[in-house]
């Protein structure tokens, strides 16, 4: 697998150094930008595979950068946020970011996100190649056309809502989906009760697909933010 080409957008030099040192140590190729305008320019001229974007840039709001890049490109964007309030992460995700890291983050965390995003990238490329109606992930298989899901080749008995959630997650594998996004997609609204229902259905869905002594983890919970399906290698 070719290592991804990464655009690092970070105005704080020590943090930028930390990221680029880590990338260098793991044979990623990268370019850097220190502000939003430059980031947009680099993104359009160098065509990176993944963008690491700090939300607190000196010249413009990180969410605006995401919106601008999203207007022409689907490149995965991982936002880095120093603010521990969830709101700006949710805004960034809703604007089209794929994942987030909260400062202070560990080097392992950064690398894990990059690997997850790279897998997402591969899935996205395959999807466009085959226009496949079957989704496969680990022991899980979803046949969109037939409206069925299988675990280890055995058909899963899912409720309509559970199946809807599974499809939504698998079609966005690797991407963090916010509570609001999911409830809007499934119920068309996002009241408090929808989010509470979502938790229950997500828990029952997980019980059905994450079974056994040491179950494979397909669905990741992001407290206060949303859920994500992990791509299993």
């Amino acid at each position, binding site marked *: 697998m070719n290592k991804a080409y990464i655009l690092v957008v970070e105005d704080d030099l020590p943090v930028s150094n930390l990221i680029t040192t880590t990338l260098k140590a793991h044979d990623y190729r990268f370019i850097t930008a220190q502000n939003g305008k430059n980031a947009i320019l680099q993104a359009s001229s160098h065509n990176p595979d993944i963008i690491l974007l700090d939300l607190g840039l000196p010249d413009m709001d990180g969410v605006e950068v995401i919106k601008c890049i999203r207007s022409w490109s689907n490149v995965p964007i991982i936002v880095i946020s120093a603010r521990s309030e969830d709101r700006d992460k949710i805004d960034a995700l809703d604007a089209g970011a794929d994942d987030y890291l909260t400062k202070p983050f560990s080097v392992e965390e950064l690398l894990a996100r990059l690997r997850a995003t790279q897998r997402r990238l591969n899935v996205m490329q395959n999807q466009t190649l085959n226009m496949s109606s079957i989704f496969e992930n680990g022991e899980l298989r979803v046949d969109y056309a037939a409206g069925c899901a299988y675990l280890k080749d055995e058909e899963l008995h899912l409720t309509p809502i559970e199946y809807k959630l599974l499809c939504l997650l698998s079609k966005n594998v690797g991407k963090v989906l916010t509570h609001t996004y999911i409830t809007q997609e499934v119920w068309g609204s996002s009241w408090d009760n929808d989010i509470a*229902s979502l938790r229950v259905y997500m828990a029952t869905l997980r019980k059905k697909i994450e079974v056994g002594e040491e179950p494979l983890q397909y669905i990741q919970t992001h407290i206060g933010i949303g859920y994500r399906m992990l791509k299993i290698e």
Partner: protein
Amino acid sequence: MRNSFKLSKLPSWKELFYSLLILGAATLIGLLFSNLGFTEANIITIYLLAILLTSLLTTSRWCNLLNSLISVLVFNFFFTEPKFTLHVYEKGYPVTFVILFIASWITGTLAVRVKEHGKKAAEAEMLAQKEQLRANLLRSISHDLRTPLTSISGNASNLLSNSSSFDEATKKQIYSDIYEDSMWLINLVENLLSVSRMEDGKMILHMQTELIDEIVTEALRHVEKRSFKHIIKVVHEEELLLVKIDARLIVQVIINLIDNAIKYTPPGTEITIHSKKEDEWIVVDVTDNGAGIPEEEKERVFEMFYTGNNKIADSRRSIGLGLFLCKSIIEAHGGQIELLDFEPHGSLFRFTLPAGEVSLHE
């Protein structure tokens, strides 16, 4: 004065009722005095006393003004010739009325002002106490920050200037010291962020219905690195225990309780997180089978800056913020936190949270 008038609220019905009651009583006493043949000066004094009393009982300046006016009219009606009319014969009376009005107005205003001063003094004292708390917090933190910062900057500077003279083992030790100390700082900052959400002793909560299972998992994810020498078990009595909480804060509570258990017990100790539903509450127990906490210290563990007398197992620093925060957070949710003994030995931190509800729609 004019401004304070505008700011002063209109009197409530209760206040009006009290004023009328007192004025009525004053009038009755006045009538008694006049029957006994006392001079009008005595009656006027009774009215002034009545105004003073009402001003102490009510808070509105409007009420005060109204009282002054009414007392003048009542005095005119009952006690000046011709009685039981608002007319007067004697030329001196209008002057008496004006003076009575002004005197009662001033008396009332002064009384209101005295009361406001008292309130302001109490507020100022509260503010001073809060400032004191803030100052204590700041001093304690700044003091405790010095140690890890000294270690981090010192270690880094050593590496910068003479890293070539260190052998691999020494270097490894230095790296891990820097890492440990910065992790300690990160944890402290998380707690401080929670403190910063407290205002006037109240927490600003973002309540949502959550699964306690997910909250515990999230908390464990944060303590993973620190907990590898301890055995951590999770038991949920029922599947799908829903709680209505501020997720981030409760994650912090569980992190702090586990951290506490790790900090004060030797490696190999078993830590259990157990949750169950009891009526409208979810009860979460965090237990360890360590040495336990002596009876005389139990009362104090939730106090701010209390760090206990016993030596911490791995000499890690503690600033006595964690458990204080746990208590504040749990109480802000309307729950309770207590420290009990775990049989046969060890400690049990038990806290309650409001159970969540959901009506599932397909």
